[in-house]
């Protein structure tokens, strides 16, 4: 086939984006585990590892720009490079959210809301990201639509979690005059709401990855 080198560049780009997906998925997973187990060392590791993710992102972005400039991809190749370019941005943002989760872990040395099942929300967000990257790897349009559909499930879990936290706040009795306890409670509430919000955003980025992948496969902007 003519343009062998170009075709090899496209194959390499796909492998590199998938590798970045694995890297980001792993960091998200570790951030969630650290949050669950209040493992400060693991959280610190996630935070410090973000520079490596950023460098990787910039390298791959440069690869895409180089392909546009030098190879002028068209049709399916154009959609592939364009989709990859956008997906890389979403992956980088997910890595930033993993850093946020790690930072909340470092602050979480006080009371937690054990009745809120953060791990269920985190697992669903991770699964969605994983499925979106699988769709990208295997050109699976149906899986793209499945990822988008599961976002409603995630949003619903996040909404219930937030309501639960707020309800608990309303119902909780704080001893009069115990200013420190009030401050601590507000800290915990706002942190938990931020965790829920960030996990919901991970789901949004997974949907973005699925949307760009669907455009790549079928030139269908339905999910974009």
């Amino acid at each position, binding site marked *: 086939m003519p*343009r062998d080198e170009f*075709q090899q560049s496209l194959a390499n780009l796909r492998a590199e984006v998938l590798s970045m997906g694995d890297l980001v998925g792993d960091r998200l997973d570790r951030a969630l585990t650290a949050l669950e187990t209040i493992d400060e060392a693991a959280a610190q590791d996630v935070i410090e590892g973000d520079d490596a993710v950023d460098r990787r992102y910039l390298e791959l972005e440069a690869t895409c720009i180089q392909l546009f400039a030098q190879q002028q991809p*068209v*049709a*399916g190749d154009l959609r592939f490079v364009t989709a990859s370019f956008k997906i890389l941005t979403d992956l980088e943002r997910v890595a930033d959210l993993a850093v946020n989760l790690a930072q909340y872990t470092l602050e979480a040395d006080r009371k937690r809301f054990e009745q809120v099942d953060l791990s269920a929300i985190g697992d669903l967000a991770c699964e969605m990201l994983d499925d979106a990257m699988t769709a990208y790897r295997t050109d699976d349009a149906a899986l793209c639509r499945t990822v988008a559909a599961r976002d409603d499930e995630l949003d619903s879990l996040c909404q219930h979690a937030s309501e639960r936290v707020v309800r608990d706040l309303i119902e909780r009795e704080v001893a009069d005059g115990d200013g420190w306890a009030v401050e601590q409670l507000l800290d915990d509430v706002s942190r938990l709401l931020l965790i829920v919000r960030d996990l919901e955003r991970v789901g949004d980025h997974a949907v973005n990855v699925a949307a760009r992948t669907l455009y790549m496969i079928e030139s269908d902007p339905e999910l974009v």
Partner: protein
Amino acid sequence: MSDSPQTQPQSQTRTKTTGSDQPLETTSGETVEETRDEWTEYNFDGEAKMVAEDLDVYYGDDHALKSVSMEIPEQSVTALIGPSGCGKSTYLRCLNRMNDRINAANVDGSVQLDGNEIYQDGINLVELRKRVGMVFQSPNPFPKSIRDNIAYGPRKHGDINTGLLARLLGRDDSEAERELVERALKQAALWDEVHDRMDDNALGLSGGQQQRLCIARCLSVDPEVILMDEPASALDPIATAKIEDLIHDLAEEYTVVIVTHNMQQAARISDQTAVFLTGGKLVEYDDTDRIFENPQSQRVEDYISGKFG
């Protein structure tokens, strides 16, 4: 995809060629199975300036163009692309009957200009080629002055009433001619570069200037359609950019049809693109952005992304 040209309710169905029930043939006669939906028609808004229906061209035994039906929208740029020998230049030459000049060429089918058949007996070919002008791959100015190159056509067509005495004296400086020459050179974005040397030999101009001179020469007889056969392939990038800008501007007033081997050029300058593939078939014809982002035919995708062969 409700805004796709195929489904626009306000558009009329104007063109039909190869359908999925008509397998493609290669030059060797083998049938090529399409691996996905085949393109069937191109709908566009606006009026068609030229219409080809079931056009076949034979060079002796060689069936160079096979049943091509295609409508060319007015005041726009239509690009014809495809590999060498695919029939795109043959098709272009059918639009002003340049194939008549090739003895072995046999044209069958219909081509209409503003609804009038150009392949009917008794048609005035000089008048046709005045209305449907042509610019070739290599600049081919006459070995005459810049002024004479531009004024040649109008003088021949009698559009300039140069006085008999002036002509006998070899002077062509009538006001009408001066205006016409200046207008054509300005339209071709060449006036600023040559206005102070109108009597110099045109062969002294650079390649890019010569090609713009040829475009000006084509414009001087006030055509309606301009056919261009790889007009920038012999030019450097700067001269190419000037020609491309010019083509873009010309489409505001004229109907431009351009054959190009440079796919990025087709993508840059055309409104719609027709892809001819080996065997003389029109395989896909659609808005240029659709051809280059999401072509319907796998073979077209393979061709434009360089995987053909």
